């Protein structure tokens, strides 16, 4: 049967198993919206296209399925760029469909024309301009394939209006044919053996796990390996939840705001096993002094991340899950493992000592003063950790990572690579769409929340009970903290002079607004918020304005030069 390009698009999405798209209409994509009118696809009407991409991204991070976006040409398309760049940096599978002016007008500075393929080239895994309806299904198939395989990432497909209204036979290809794109999943057997030998020889091993563990759903394999070999584990921000936050082998996050134990362990380890992590500068601190005594084993699906920042001794390119399974198969016998455990005792004791002497902590506030860390602790306690947490960027993000314990993968969603303020609320909405029954909380700053606060309206419209916990310090807190340390407390333009009344604002949108300014009010507010099931809740926690995030490794310093509480 012949169909229009727009109908082919929707039918293709259904073939791909898509159930929800996040979008915002406009002239060029009207043919798509007309088909949507009576299609079974759920469409979430956002308030800003950046929000649409973060929602699709949150949906993808929480569910493991690709997130899908439809927006119009020109400004609709350019508004997606920050969202796309965010997904790109964190390797999140998102497919963005943008409208484009008719092919005959491309390049003519037509109304609402933007070269979105050119603009997004550096921040997409791949992108396409469909110039002929004959290419449409093939391109969509490829887009989903590229977005979700290998190292995942965002893919953009630009759809000129004439392609959307042209007619063609609908035949969806069974598979994508991309000779130049053949991700390597299976790790090299010899390298896997070599790695295992090195690990067994080590006396001070450390696992450093990143977002790749979560992306490849390798948390169970990681847990098995760490437990069998008694290796302490640290994760990056992106790796949170990839290893249970409550496990006795877990040392917490490493890096700039990592725990003392994790950073000391990495500095002293003789064998660092990096798994789905990319040695980001926020993690390594001064690179020459990162894990200076270690043999480095690096498992990653992306060959470009191997030996990019740090020289690696045993590289293994491939899918983390499969490789960890292979390693699991060549473990020594029970008796030897017992022996091995004994040999590691001094190291495990040392790690425990670091943990004991330098716990993550903060000074409780003077009477009546609310500390932001306390709010996060209470959120953890009252949800019993059963929540999906998203964050904005800044101190709120770090406190969320430090004081909430993530037991499962896909429960901590945060913009790690790009550090995008305004990510948390739309990402929370996307996660809530994927899991309508779960508790989803955005831990936010008063600055960040204002970057995409308009999405409150989206949450209200679709009765999504996302919770926002604003750690309201009346500052762009993290930047203020840097000014405090490195610029002599000259707080240049980081004080949010005028803030809206967040409670009234929530109510104006049709959500619930709550406030706590004293420690004793926190519990009641959170409990009340958790009971709301049919609309968003904004909790305004008025916290100590000049609280800092500790520990902190100043930029350019090695990990063991930490400023402690």
């Amino acid at each position: 049967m012949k169909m229009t390009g727009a109908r082919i698009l929707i039918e293709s999405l259904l073939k791909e198993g898509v159930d929800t798209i996040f979008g915002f209409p406009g002239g060029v994509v009207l043919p798509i919206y007309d088909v949507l009118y009576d299609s079974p696809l759920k469409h979430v009407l956002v308030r800003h296209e950046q929000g649409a991409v973060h929602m699709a991204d949150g949906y993808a991070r929480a569910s493991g399925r690709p997130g899908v976006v439809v927006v119009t040409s020109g400004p609709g398309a350019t508004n997606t760029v920050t969202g796309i760049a965010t997904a790109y940096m964190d390797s999140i599978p998102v497919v963005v469909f943008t409208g484009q002016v008719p092919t005959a007008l491309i390049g003519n500075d037509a109304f609402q024309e933007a070269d979105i393929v050119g603009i997004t080239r550096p921040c997409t895994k791949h992108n396409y301009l469909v110039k002929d309806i004959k290419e449409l299904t093939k391109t969509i198939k490829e887009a989903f394939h590229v977005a979700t395989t290998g190292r995942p990432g965002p893919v953009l497909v630009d759809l000129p209006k004439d392609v959307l209204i042209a007619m063609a036979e609908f035949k969806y290809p069974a598979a994508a044919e991309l000779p130049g794109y053949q991700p390597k999943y299976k790790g090299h057997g010899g390298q896997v053996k070599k790695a295992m030998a090195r690990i067994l020889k080590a006396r001070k091993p450390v696992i450093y796990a990143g977002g790749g563990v979560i992306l490849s759903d390798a948390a169970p394999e990681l847990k098995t390996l760490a437990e069998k070999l008694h290796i302490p584990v640290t994760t990056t921000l992106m790796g949170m939840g990839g290893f249970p936050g409550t496990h006795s082998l877990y040392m917490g996050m490493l890096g700039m705001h990592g725990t003392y134990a994790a950073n000391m362990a990495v500095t002293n380890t003789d064998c660092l096993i990096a798994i789905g992590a990319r040695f980001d500068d926020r993690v390594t601190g001064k690179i020459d002094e990162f894990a200076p005594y270690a043999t480095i084993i690096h498992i990653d699906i992306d060959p470009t991340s191997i030996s990019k920042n740090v020289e690696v001794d045993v590289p293994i390119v491939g899918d983390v899950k499969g490789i960890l399974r292979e390693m699991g198969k060549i473990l020594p016998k029970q008796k030897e493992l017992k022996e091995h455990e004994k040999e590691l005792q001094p190291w495990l004791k040392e790690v425990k000592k670091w943990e004991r002497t330098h716990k993550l902590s903060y000074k409780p506030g003077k009477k009546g003063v609310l500390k932001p860390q306390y709010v996060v602790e209470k959120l953890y306690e009252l949800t019993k950790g059963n929540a999906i947490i998203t964050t904005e960027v800044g101190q709120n993000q770090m406190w969320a990572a430090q004081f909430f314990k993530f037991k499962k993968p896909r429960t901590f969603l945060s913009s790690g690579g790009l550090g995008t303020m305004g990510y948390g609320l739309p990402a929370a909405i996307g996660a809530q769409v994927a899991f309508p029954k779960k508790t989803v909380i955005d831990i936010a700053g008063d600055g960040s929340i204002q970057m995409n606060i308009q999405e409150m309206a989206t949450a209200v419209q679709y009765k999504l009970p996302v919770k926002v916990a604003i750690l309201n310090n009346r500052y762009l807190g993290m930047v203020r903290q840097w000014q405090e340390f490195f610029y002599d407390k000259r707080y240049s333009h980081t004080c949010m002079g005028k803030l809206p009344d967040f409670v009234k604002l929530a109510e104006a949108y049709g959500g619930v607004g709550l406030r706590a300014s004293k420690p004793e009010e926190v519990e009641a507010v959170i409990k009340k918020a958790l009971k709301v099931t049919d609309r968003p809740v904004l909790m305004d926690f008025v916290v100590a304005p000049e609280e800092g995030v500790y520990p902190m490794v100043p930029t350019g310093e090695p990990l063991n030069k930490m400023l402690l509480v």
Partner: protein
Amino acid sequence: MRHTISVLVSNEFGVLSKISGLFSGRGFNIESLCVAETLDPEVSRMTIVTRGDDKVIEQITKQLNKLVSVLKVHDLTAEEHIGRELALIKVSVAAENRAEVLSIVDIFRAKVVDVSPRSYTIETTGDEQKLRAIVELLRPFGIKEVARTGRIALSRSHRAKQGK
């Protein structure tokens, strides 16, 4: 060190900008880049001359390989290969030095492809050294314009390399 990298890419919309953008976005240096269709009209060959230490070159080849449109990346530097560049040189000639210019053209096995009352346009191919030498020899006569292609190269291995 200087490297000659041969890249086979799908001949599709925007592929050149994907490659050149990779270089500019990551701060890699391009000395020259030539591109044209191969025998297969769906595949183009790019010859890229670039400079960097081993680590940089490793990143360049890995990053190129990672692009979806890239079919094959081949660093020719370490193996035997043939590299050529083409130049068109427009040189002033007065009646008294025509013979001398022609003898230079002859020595270099170049060709005069256009003649005007006051100039010759000379076509020459070769490696970079040869092109530099001929330009230097012609310079005293007054070079009006030069157009050069940048390097194209093929491995001397008899096997055509397919796939990544």
